[in-house]
């Protein structure tokens, strides 16, 4: 086996040093009753060339944006990834390192995380960001738990327009914590219903959680939600599932969010069938000590040189055990590095320009689709790069028809929102050319007559 260097002679000499006469004897601590006295039933090993052929065959059985025209979003987005990102994260000093527990030989990772934390703060308008969480959904759940800790209240209001899988994840995390989770419906604009929110908010409410943009692609009136929440002393947790939008949208921090939890996949991370992605998490300075996750801080070495270390670890599980602010240990370090490289390449102008292209292309598609007979846009609220379409003939038949023409036209909403058989979510990014959008529109029109 090419990953295991031991020769027969090495093994013989090492056993002699250890003072046992066989490899078997090393396992004397494992009682006979629990020993496995057979080989594992797994396929025989594949040589490297065979392995690549096998994986090539698996890869060929999946649709991608290369094999199909794709308009899929819903929390995972097809954005262009500059070649630099993968080239740099392939430096094995980055990807074969562990968590930076020994700062003197981990400064590369530590400085990059410090830069990542800074970028996330700038983007979200918040004071402090952690080194990452697993994904947008789990980050959102940690945001809820933090709001509960900070307010010492037990009621949480979740917008029904928040990503359904984020809501489900929050529900799982809170399952046994004796919290009251209440869903708030959405209005004709596709925004969290303000009247219902007002009615449900009270002095027991720990947090209001909304998407920004929300699952329907609609941009919530975050300032109004934040004001309503703060009137009752509740926290606003803003969940950003498409952070490219923050290149154009006012930051959640500016609009009053207390916690911003989001999904960073759009920042240079491959779609990869749903993971690994990047949960980002940012909060206010006053709540620093109740934040979950790792934090990197600036300090100096014994000769006064600037450097970076893991800090405020007394919040964390390896020190505080059952009193920790979260159980998280491994996070998504390399994905945070991808986002840092991506955002460094795009910079101030590039993020804005990518965001503008997304907006312009989505608006173009919206206008064309809205003009088709048999199709309408059910939500009136402003959107960024995705939007809900209603098809008279029903979402499933339309999407099936598109698929037959090699188009992944959107995500049917009925699986999450009963009673919406006609609605599907369409996403348009900078990766979709006008020609592709016109192709989608023509295909939609083709069967709607």
């Amino acid at each position, binding site marked *: 086996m090419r990953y295991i260097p031991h020769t027969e002679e090495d093994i013989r000499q090492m056993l002699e040093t250890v003072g046992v006469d066989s490899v078997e004897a090393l*396992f004397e601590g494992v*009682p006979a009753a*629990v020993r*496995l006295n057979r080989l*594992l039933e797994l396929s025989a090993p594949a040589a490297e060339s065979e392995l*690549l052929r096998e994986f090539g065959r*698996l890869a060929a059985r999946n*649709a*991608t944006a290369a094999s199909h025209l794709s308009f899929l979003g819903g*929390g995972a987005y*097809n954005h262009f990834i500059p070649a630099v990102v993968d080239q*740099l994260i392939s430096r094995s*000093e980055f*990807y074969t390192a*562990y968590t930076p527990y020994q700062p*003197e030989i*981990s*400064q590369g990772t530590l*400085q990059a995380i410090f*830069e990542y934390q800074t970028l996330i703060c700038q983007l979200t308008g918040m004071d*402090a*960001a952690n080194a*990452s969480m*697993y994904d947008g959904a*789990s980050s959102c759940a940690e945001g809820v738990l933090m709001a509960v800790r900070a307010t010492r209240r037990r009621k949480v209001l979740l917008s029904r327009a928040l990503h359904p*899988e984020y809501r*489900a994840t929050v529900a*799982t*995390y809170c399952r046994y914590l004796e919290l009251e989770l209440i869903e708030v419906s959405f209005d004709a604009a596709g925004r969290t219903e303000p009247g219902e929110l007002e009615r449900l908010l009270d002095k027991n409410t720990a947090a209001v959680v909304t998407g920004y943009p929300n699952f329907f692609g609609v941009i919530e009136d975050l300032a109004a939600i934040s004001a309503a929440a703060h009137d009752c002393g509740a926290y606003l947790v803003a969940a950003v599932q498409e952070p490219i939008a923050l290149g*154009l*949208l006012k930051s959640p921090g500016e609009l009053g969010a207390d916690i911003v939890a989001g999904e960073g996949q759009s920042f240079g991370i*491959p779609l990869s*069938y749903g*993971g*690994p992605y990047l949960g980002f998490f940012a909060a206010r300075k006053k709540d620093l000590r109740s934040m979950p996750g790792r*934090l990197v*801080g600036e*300090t100096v*070495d*014994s*000769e006064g040189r600037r450097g970076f270390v893991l800090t405020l670890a007394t919040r964390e*599980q390896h020190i505080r055990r*059952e*009193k920790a602010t*979260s*159980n998280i*240990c*491994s*996070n*998504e370090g390399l994905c945070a590095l991808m986002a840092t*490289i991506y955002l*460094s*390449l795009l*910079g101030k102008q*590039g993020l804005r*320009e990518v965001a*503008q*292209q997304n907006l312009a292309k989505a608006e*173009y598609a919206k206008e064309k689709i809205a003009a088709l007979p048999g199709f309408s846009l059910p939500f009136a609220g*402003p959107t960024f790069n995705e939007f809900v379409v209603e098809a008279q003939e029903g979402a499933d038949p339309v999407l099936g028809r598109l698929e037959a023409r090699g188009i992944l036209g959107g995500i049917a909403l009925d699986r999450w929102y009963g009673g919406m058989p006609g609605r599907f979510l369409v996403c348009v990014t900078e990766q979709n050319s006008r020609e592709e959008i016109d192709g989608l529109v023509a295909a939609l029109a083709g069967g709607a007559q």
Partner: protein
Amino acid sequence: MKSLGTTGLILNEKLIFEHSDPGRKGYSLPALDVPEAALPAELAREEVSGFPELSEVDVVRHFTRLSTWNYGVDSGLYPLGSCTMKYNPKVNEVAARLPGLAGVHPYAPEHLAQGALSLMYHLQEALAEISGFACVTLQPAAGAHGELTGMLVIRACLEARGDSRRKVIIPDTAHGTNPASAVLCGYEVVPVASDGILSAAAVAAVMDEEVAALMITNPNTLGLFESEITEICDVVHAKGGLVYCDGANLNALLGIARPGDMGIDVMHFNLHKTFATPHGGGGPGAGPVGVTDELAPFLPVPLVVKEVDAFRLDYDRPHSVGRVKAFYGNFGILVRAWAYIRSMGPQGLRHATAMAVLNANYIRARLEGTWHLPHRRRSMHEVVFSDRDLGGDCHTLDVAKRLIDYGYHPPTIYFPLVVKGAIMIEPTETECVEVLDEFCDAMLAIAREAQENPDLLHQAPLKTRTRRFDETAAARNPRLKWEG
């Protein structure tokens, strides 16, 4: 002695923000081919204040220089105990980047994602076979996430039995994630002392009808096999509780013994330890969870199931605890782990475990005359020493920093908590005897230095680009972002 560590030209590098020059550009975009659009003015922000502006060259140099300040498994021995820093095969990286795997959208129709689902199904099956469990979920993103999932499943199962309980027993050798995960499930932690290994009698003394589960690590964090494991499981089961196993140390057991055969009910795997996926400087990992038949209905949705000639995602699981993240798991990591299992085969996995255990015992044999070994049972994949017999007022932290000068990443230090000044060494199977010998020579040299020239330890590291950091100042006055 000849040291691997040396000094060389290492470049200084500013923060990315300090390189920024207005007007520089590191990206390209196609010309906009549709009419421009604008957001309603009240929603729009100005440019993101503080974002850098750099050319592609600036960015590449910046991160390349940062990378040279790091130490990875590809640099050399990385003997972090309980972290299993084995070599990360390169073909696995290539496999995960195949466009047909890296480019699949999670909401692609299932019949157009059959390659991805097939891979996940076969990985579920392989992990079940390796661990002896009936059913495996791939959804959790890391070990601690797997612990949370496993403990939620335990609670859901007990509640379905109509048996609400409130306590979880955790030995003093456990990882800190164990108590933190139990608390997230609404449980109260009952610590139990072990003496190297946990005795069934010690568990019986605290086990009662209020205890939902025992969380155990096997081999434990002292690198010792919990030899009373079946008796311990019997004690817990007899009082209606369940047994959770932290699978962090599974690298000691591949093809040797299966936790599912020992009476354990739930275990998480760390694919980024046992199955050779890279740690990425702190993640992403993957933390699949295996369970017995009784617990399978409670696993997160969806699971990948096989029908006659197709694979699909099964959401119709009414007893499920729900989901612990969006989508289906850290698929890119699952691809790498499956590539590893396919490359190793059953003999290869068993050989990996055998050589991992041989390597740990070899280090132990070479050091135990000099270094204090608090527990004398046979070691499995890792060995724990302490700084007790070290002279010159030198401590574990000094040893760790001095090892850096010799060219090694230090072992895990001050863990497990039950050993004062612990030095926990896990070499893994991918290190050859020459590397182990050089490392042991360095450890022996450091023990001598502690007697003869302790300042070398107190001052260490001496050869790194930066010296020891003021961590107290970092925590007292936290500076967590660049302020310009």
